[in-house]
């Protein structure tokens, strides 16, 4: 027995030896190196005068691929600067770049920066990690202010704690990036707090990318026309539900499919109905004089009555209030819906479309123009998405790393950085066609194509810091494919259609602070909304008035509206 015990002890000791050996060495304390003044000033001197101000850069027209030259490495500091950046990765299922990634080497050679990239977990875990680091004053040099609610609010919180540094002084050091990435003042100023630019607002991942689509093959089979109004849409949906549009002899189709995304009211997936009446957003941005919650407008109720009619007529998947996105995306490729709201890439990317194509080779989705409802203005929906918020930690700025961060960001906007971090190595991971569009055609080893799953580690920052949504770039990112019966499925066509529809700009909504009783307010709002929509509660003048009265009496919505209005007036979004 004692031999066994000795054996176990030896095993334990060996395990610990292995454990110690496998643990990464504790990183050496950061030894900040302040680049020579000449380095930063030489870059700054080339910046346009307007960029050096502390406010957001002036708007410039959308750009094509970056044309600036790579920052000259001649004035690099003697000792390399260590920079650690934390970002949500573009492909969280792929690893972070390997230690021998060419990007690290190039950044070291060209910029004299030892870059360390850390992929933040998405969702609440990422926020927890950031919060813990913030509490320990151990924030990285440059990071995304990840939050499950609002990255802007997270930036505000970190600013209140004195953990982030103003970046006004860095803007003149990156003239190219200001033109290519920070060229939308309405977005960029969202990171301006008390007159100081406390972070950067990067490019959004393709705004206005969702839209309403309809089964054209069903329309043709039933001899129907493309709907242009909500009433016409309801008529078409009725036919899709009752006239066996797929011809299988079964009553197994719904005119409309969708799901509740957990936001407000019907959520983004059904906002097209409210868009037809001019009130697609929670807030009534279309009528600044009477700014408030859209639910108070007559148009909102008109749209709700239409939505209720759709539910009453049973021409919508009755599970819309309970299924999630994954379930929804199992159902539509099964041919259950004739009309739905979907992301253009989720609809038409080769892999996603193939799931539908295999079941319905002759099926065809086409986009629907923004519907008309009332007599006023109509929208497809509202868009309020902005890019990620990034910040420089005060600790890092105090250590003199600001210029190095600016240099890195500027290089990422240069052609060299843009292509290397966005697509990989030319000739190996991508090629440029005659029009200068990135393509994977003609690569000697297709498995090394930048789009291949194996290469995702090398472009993990592309959606966060690299891409600029230039048309050529979008064309490269979302290529066309062929359906089973030879039709061209163009992702770009869907995106261009959606993005050029009338959308209501609700980006200033990013400024709005959540009320302290958000959970109660939202629950009250949504429960009543669904009761009206699903028909479990009568919808008449009395019940509607009671609902609106309860909004103020029970969950104090009026105060939130008043606070929001004042906030937006102070920010200059609304006139006083």
């Amino acid at each position, binding site marked *: 027995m004692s031999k066994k015990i000795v054996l176990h002890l030896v095993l334990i000791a060996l395990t610990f030896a292995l454990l110690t050996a496998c643990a990464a060495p504790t990183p050496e304390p950061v030894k900040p190196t302040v680049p020579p003044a000449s380095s930063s000033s030489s870059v700054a001197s080339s910046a346009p005068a307007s960029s050096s101000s502390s406010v957001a850069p002036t708007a410039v027209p959308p750009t094509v691929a970056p044309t600036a030259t790579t920052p000259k490495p001649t004035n690099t500091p003697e000792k390399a600067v260590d920079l650690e950046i934390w970002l949500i990765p573009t492909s969280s299922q792929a690893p972070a770049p390997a230690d021998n990634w060419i990007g690290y080497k190039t950044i070291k050679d060209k910029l004299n920066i030892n870059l360390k990239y850390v992929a933040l977990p998405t969702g609440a875990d990422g926020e927890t990690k950031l919060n813990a680091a913030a509490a320990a004053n151990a924030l990285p040099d440059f990071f995304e202010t990840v939050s499950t609610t609002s990255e802007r609010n997270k930036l505000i919180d970190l600013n209140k704690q004195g953990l982030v540094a103003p970046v006004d002084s860095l803007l003149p050091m990156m003239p190219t990036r200001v033109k290519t990435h920070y060229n939308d003042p309405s977005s960029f100023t969202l990171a301006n707090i008390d007159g100081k630019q406390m972070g950067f607002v990067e490019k959004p991942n393709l705004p206005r990318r969702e839209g309403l689509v309809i089964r054209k093959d069903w329309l043709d089979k039933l001899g129907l026309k493309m709907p242009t109004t909500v009433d016409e849409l309801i008529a078409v949906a009725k036919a899709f539900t009752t006239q066996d549009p797929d011809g299988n002899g079964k009553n197994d189709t719904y005119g409309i499919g969708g799901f509740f995304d957990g936001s407000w009211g019907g959520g983004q997936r059904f906002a097209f109905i409210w868009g037809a009446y001019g009130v697609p957003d929670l807030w009534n941005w279309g009528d600044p004089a009477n700014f408030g919650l859209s639910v108070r407008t007559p148009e909102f109720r008109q749209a709700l009555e239409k939505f209720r009619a759709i539910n009453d007529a049973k021409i919508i998947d009755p599970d819309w209030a309970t299924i999630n996105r994954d379930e929804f995306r199992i159902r539509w490729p099964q041919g259950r819906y004739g009309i739905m709201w979907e992301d253009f890439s989720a609809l038409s990317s080769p892999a996603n479309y193939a799931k539908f194509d295999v079941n319905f080779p002759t099926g065809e989705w086409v986009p629907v123009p923004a519907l008309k409802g009332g007599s006023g203005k109509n929208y497809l929906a509202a868009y309020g998405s902005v890019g990620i918020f990034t910040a420089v930690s005060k600790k890092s700025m105090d250590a003199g790393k600001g210029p190095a961060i600016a240099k890195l960001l500027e290089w990422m906007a240069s052609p060299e950085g843009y292509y290397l971090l966005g697509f990989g190595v030319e000739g190996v991971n991508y090629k440029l066609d005659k029009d200068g569009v990135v393509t994977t055609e003609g690569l000697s080893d297709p498995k090394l194509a930048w789009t291949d*799953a194996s290469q995702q580690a090398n472009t993990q920052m592309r959606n966060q810091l690299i891409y600029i949504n230039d048309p050529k770039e979008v064309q490269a990112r979302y290529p066309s494919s062929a359906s089973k019966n030879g039709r061209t499925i163009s992702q770009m066509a869907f995106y261009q259609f959606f993005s050029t529809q009338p959308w209501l700009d609700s980006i200033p909504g990013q400024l709005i602070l959540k009320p302290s009783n958000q959970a109660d307010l939202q629950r009250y709002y949504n429960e009543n909304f669904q009761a009206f929509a699903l028909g479990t509660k009568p919808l008449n003048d009395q019940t509607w008035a009671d609902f609106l009265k309860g909004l103020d009496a029970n969950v104090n919505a009026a105060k939130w509206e008043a606070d929001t209005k004042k906030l937006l007036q102070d920010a200059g979004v609304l006139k006083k």
Partner: protein
Amino acid sequence: MFKSFRRDELGFQLLINAFLLIVLLAIVIPLWRVIMTSFTPLDVYMKGGTPMFQLPWQWSLGAYEQLLTHPTFPRATLNSIIITLGGTALSLFLTIPLSYALSTRTLPGRRIIIALILFTFLFHVGLIPTYLLVAKTLGWSNNFLAVIVPPAVGVTNVLVMMRFFEGIPDEIKESARIDGANDLQVLWSIVLPLSKPIILTIGLFYAVYYWNEFFSPMLYLNDQNLQTLPVLLRSILIGQNFSEYVDVDVSQAASIESLKSAAVLLTMLPMVLVYPWIQRYFTKGTLLGGVKE
């Protein structure tokens, strides 16, 4: 089979068996569905979801292939194994002597020590102070010790083990002491050989904890070479969920649900394999030897 029961007993037995059958089904059906989902080919899934039964030759290993061929999967598995083995070894190394000492009723200050241990159980220190201690004071960022050491001693496990040691008759220990053994020798030579069931049981608890631990690695291990299996699997699944925002096709071999199910089963597998081997110790008597009073 019910002939030997009286009528009232038969009713009771039927009730009990019906209840147990429901419990069994409540466990087996979801597990079976997870297994089926993990093997469902993408085209079958997209046509009609997961079938309840599939013939084995219709199964697809696409989900497993996608997970197992992930470039960092081997490294993450090794990291999880290291953490599990190292953590379990350290935990037992600390828990056994502590429990044994506390089981000795003559230990000076025993009640105070137990109260202090219980205090940490009832009043958790919270995330931020722990992070400050582990990451800042001890400097264990990017070090497996940050994952292994803080939870090394589980209060519940200490109390369970302590109660077990208390149940070992004092006569056995006394006889060893009469033969000249000191406390450590009594522990090694007498108590531990009699304590296989509890050591393996508590060891399994620790092993399951370390194997499944997600939060600490996520918090302290920034270096992707130190990434553990739960962190990796979560990243893969989250990535699938956001596939429409990615320009490339992230899933061509399996559905998201298949990947989720395969990930669940892969994570379960080591513990499922170990459990039958240890199970006999769970049900075995608490003493392997003893004396007649």
